[in-house]
């Protein structure tokens, strides 16, 4: 067995007495695609905040590639280690064109001075074309991102994530507001990405999760309730209670 890419060990976070995460442990292998489901308030978004350095846990460690503890690092450092994140609400740079959005996300030196004197290289241009193709935004390359439709913004954000070329992608509800066809395409895309990258998908949409056809982790009240294939977890009595009991 290979070493896990990401290993959350006993992570707890509380806000004013409310336990958002309670002794959560989780392991993601390199190249794995993992779906995380759970009712509202289960701690899915907080878990992502902890991994990406937005929230510091009260207890526990988050090890990346075996020896880097993410809980000590700031967001930009974690991002540069190779962890990309897509927000629940699509967040793109509304005043920039699609092209500029992708350009900013491309894996290049992030310093101020390299930014001042940056010039688009041939390689970068090719990569951007590639991403435009993947996200089907090629015809809209010069459109300001604020003028895109909701689904297009979701795709642009995924495109930006890919431009970062991360080792691990955290994707929060990627298909919210998408049509069925778009949902299917997204599932396809995520499956295609995994293998080369590890992907964690947080989703409510069970159809979409089924479409992904991967290992599922169920969160409840900040802890892991069940783990396994979607069929296994949906047969789990506890999971049924949690979902139906509400």
């Amino acid at each position, binding site marked *: 067995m290979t070493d896990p890419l990401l290993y959350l060990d006993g992570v707890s976070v509380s806000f004013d007495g409310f336990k958002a995460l309670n002794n959560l442990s989780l392991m993601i292998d390199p190249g794995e695609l993992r779906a995380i489901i759970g009712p509202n308030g289960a701690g899915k978004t907080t878990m992502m905040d902890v991994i990406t350095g937005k929230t510091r846990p009260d207890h526990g460690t988050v090890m990346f590639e075996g020896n880097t503890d993410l809980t000590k690092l700031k*967001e930009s450092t974690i*991002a540069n280690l190779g962890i990309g994140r897509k927000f629940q609400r699509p967040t793109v*740079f*509304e005043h*920039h064109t699609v092209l500029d959005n992708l*350009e900013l996300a491309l894996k290049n030196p992030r310093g*101020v001075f390299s930014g*001042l004197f940056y010039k688009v290289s041939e390689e970068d241009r090719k990569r951007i074309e590639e991403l435009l193709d993947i996200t089907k935004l090629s015809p809209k390359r010069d459109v300001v991102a604020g003028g895109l439709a909701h689904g297009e913004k979701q795709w642009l954000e995924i495109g930006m994530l890919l431009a970062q070329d991360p080792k691990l992608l955290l994707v929060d509800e990627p298909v919210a507001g998408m049509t069925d066809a778009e949902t299917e395409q997204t599932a396809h895309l995520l499956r295609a990405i995994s293998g080369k990258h590890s992907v964690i998908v947080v989703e409510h949409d069970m159809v979409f999760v089924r479409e992904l056809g991967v290992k599922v982790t169920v969160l409840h009240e900040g802890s892991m309730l069940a783990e396994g294939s979607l069929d296994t977890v949906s047969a789990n009595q506890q999971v049924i209670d949690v979902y139906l009991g509400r």
Partner: protein
Amino acid sequence: MLTRFLLAGLDTKAWVLLSVLAVLAVAVPFMALAVPPTSPWSLSMLTVTLLGKYFCYALLALSLDLVWGYCGILSLGHGAFFALGGYAMGMYLMRQIGSRGVYGNAELPDFMVFLNWKELPWYWHGFDMFPFAALMVVLIPGVLAFAFGWFAFRSRVTGVYLSIITQAMTFALLLAFFRNDMGFGGNNGLTDFKEILGYDIQAPATRAGLFVATVVALAIGYILASAVVSSKYGKVLVAVRDAESRVRFLGYDVEKVKLFAWTLSACMAGVAGALYVPQVGIINPSEFSPAASIEAVIWVAVGGRGTLAGAVLGAVIVNYGKTWFTGVLPEVWLFALGGLFVLVTLFLPKGILGLAGDLRQRLAARRSRAAAGSNAAKEATAP
């Protein structure tokens, strides 16, 4: 590479503005010095000084636009950087007075003699040399901005909170510079300058020279600012303004991004202040007042934040209005200024330039719609 970097950012608007500045830099001194005063084309020295003042303000507005318009940091304390640059220049000018002061002390400025000080405070040393003073003009505001920004951005103070603490910063400096023991002339500030670089500061030729220097500084500032905002770094800057945490999760160190623009902007404001002082002939603590800083914000808002030309335009227009009002209807000026704040924020969020852009777009849209409409009408009437 540097020239390419600097020129890459210039668009049509920039070229127009730079051409205007170039014409002014030649025409104004010519009209003031060479055209006989009887001619209608002659400019009084007063007008030259006034124009010079406007362009100093324009440079300040430019620096403010860089952080507010492009990075979303609304500074209510930019006047502090302007004033610090001004004080650095003022200290040089004080040292140039030498023994021509009222008390005839070659070493100490008059106010120190008056306060019975025996020797020059350590921080006044070196200001008798112009290159040192010029360095300090940039360095002092720069270092203050760096230190302030380093703390503020690192602890993620943003939005209104940041605005309020920048205001507190300039207020604290205002109180400090009022104190006589600070060694900056207290209430009266620094004034009664005699000469700059060996030239009589009152002489028309010197005044014209200072005007040209201001125009050149504004042009350089403009070129530099457009180069910065049109680079990839400039795009990151705008991205920080629009979605700060997204930029962070893309791996950019947002603190450093902000800090660079903030410090650069403070240095520019310092230069503006340094050019302002020899032209108006005085620098006193009132330049630190929060009201002065917030007034600069409205110049940028009027012209159109997020457009460099707008900042320049706004500074000149509002200050021309101020000159006009205070001459004709002084009691109405505060109403006008206050009303400007309200009207611009309510009805002109993008300023004059933004409005012009919107109008042009709407006009174009209407024209294309009209064209489409008439085509449709033709089709409908066709049998």
